[in-house]
């Protein structure tokens, strides 16, 4: 059967999709943490700048952000450096999806840090922890527990958003499905296969997130 060969291609594409999602999530966590930090800093102009950038990213279609980075930034850099600059589809995808993830994650992290009892921070200060120690040993482990459900949802949204990166030419799962669809003239079959793979990935993710949640809450009764 011809279909088997295409399924292998689609599975290879799935690896690219998962890689993209993981890189974007890692980048997005960093962006989210920085965003949450900037939004809670007492310097007003910094806080307002961070808040408005987050507001803008959350309000724009994912497609527009991706195209802006892939096509827009490439032209901008090309003009700036006076020679042609090419941004890879994968890098543009990570940047765009990471920024979107980060803009939403900033809110999640902010809420999570606010949910920690003030006494914990004061105790850490009283014990003479440095700022970094306080952050990694006291605040982060506790905030993690509050942030996890929100981050889990964002991860599921991110997984589904990876599909659009195929539009700038990344050979991910969606792209392989598209190619298989056009060669075999069976678009329904192959897009359905792609849909089912997305479904499997999101379902497995949900299970893993659940395990993480149990892990994070193991000392809470």
């Amino acid at each position: 059967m011809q279909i088997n060969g295409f399924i292998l291609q689609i599975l290879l594409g799935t690896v690219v999709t998962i890689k993209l999602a993981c890189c974007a999530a890692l980048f997005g966590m960093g962006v989210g943490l920085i965003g949450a930090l900037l939004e809670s800093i007492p310097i007003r102009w910094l806080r307002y700048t961070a808040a408005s950038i987050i507001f803008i990213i959350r309000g724009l279609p994912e497609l527009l952000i991706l195209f802006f980075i892939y096509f827009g930034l490439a032209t901008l850099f090309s003009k700036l450096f006076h020679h042609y600059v090419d941004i890879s589809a994968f890098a543009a995808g990570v940047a765009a999806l990471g920024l979107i993830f980060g803009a939403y994650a900033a809110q999640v992290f902010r809420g999570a840090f606010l949910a920690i009892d003030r006494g914990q921070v004061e105790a850490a200060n009283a014990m003479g922890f440095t700022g970094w120690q306080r952050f990694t040993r006291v605040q982060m482990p506790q905030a993690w527990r509050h942030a996890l459900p929100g981050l889990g949802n964002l991860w599921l949204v991110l997984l589904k958003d990876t599909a659009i990166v195929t539009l700038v030419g990344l050979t991910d799962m969606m792209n392989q499905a598209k190619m298989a669809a056009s060669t075999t003239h069976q678009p329904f079959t192959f897009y359905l296969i792609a849909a089912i793979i997305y479904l499997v990935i999101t379902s497995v993710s949900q299970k893993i997130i659940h395990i993480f949640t149990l892990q994070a809450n193991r000392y809470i009764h």
Partner: protein
Amino acid sequence: MLNFLSYLPDLARGLTITLILMLISTFAGLALAILMTIGSRSERYVLRKGIALFVFFIRGTPLLVQLFLIYYGAGQFEWIRNSSLWIILREPMACAIIALTINSACYTTILLQGAINSVPKNEVAACEAMGMSKWLALRRIIFPRAFRIALPAYSNEVVMILKGTSLASTITLLDLMGVIQQLIAQTYQTVQFYVLAGVIYLLFNAIITTIFNILFKWGAIPNR
């Protein structure tokens, strides 16, 4: 500097299509979501499970795949091409509306189900005590209450629909995003046009938020 005014007719056409997509799918999606919510409370096991499975499928897959599945996928079957359904399914506009409607309906169904579950139990019990029929209680007490609870989350959902309309440009539809792409291909003014598109989408967002703020005030229960 770019003279945007000369592109105004094209932009206006794109905006109209985005607006039509958005309005039809929002209202149709809401109507379908209400039907699906009622259906998911039915006593028929098959109906309940069927709706749950459908919602699971739609929420677990990207909108882009759903769009391609409907627009490109439908043409695979001879019997669809020969039936009268083809008149609808060969039109990108209709396919985009169908995909967006189904998508938003499934997300809204989950919202409504959650909202109905958080309607205070004593109010539902009061309905029973008053001898209201199930349908009357749903119509007069539970739904109005659930809508108020779901409204903040629903405003986010409407913004999601707006963002989703931009994907319609991938099935040859010239919505705002499609027109912007076309103008970029003509003028090579990449950055300027993307920024313009961004500003327009943000304006749309602001309008949606304003409408929902009015709805919040209008729907607020007095003396609370």
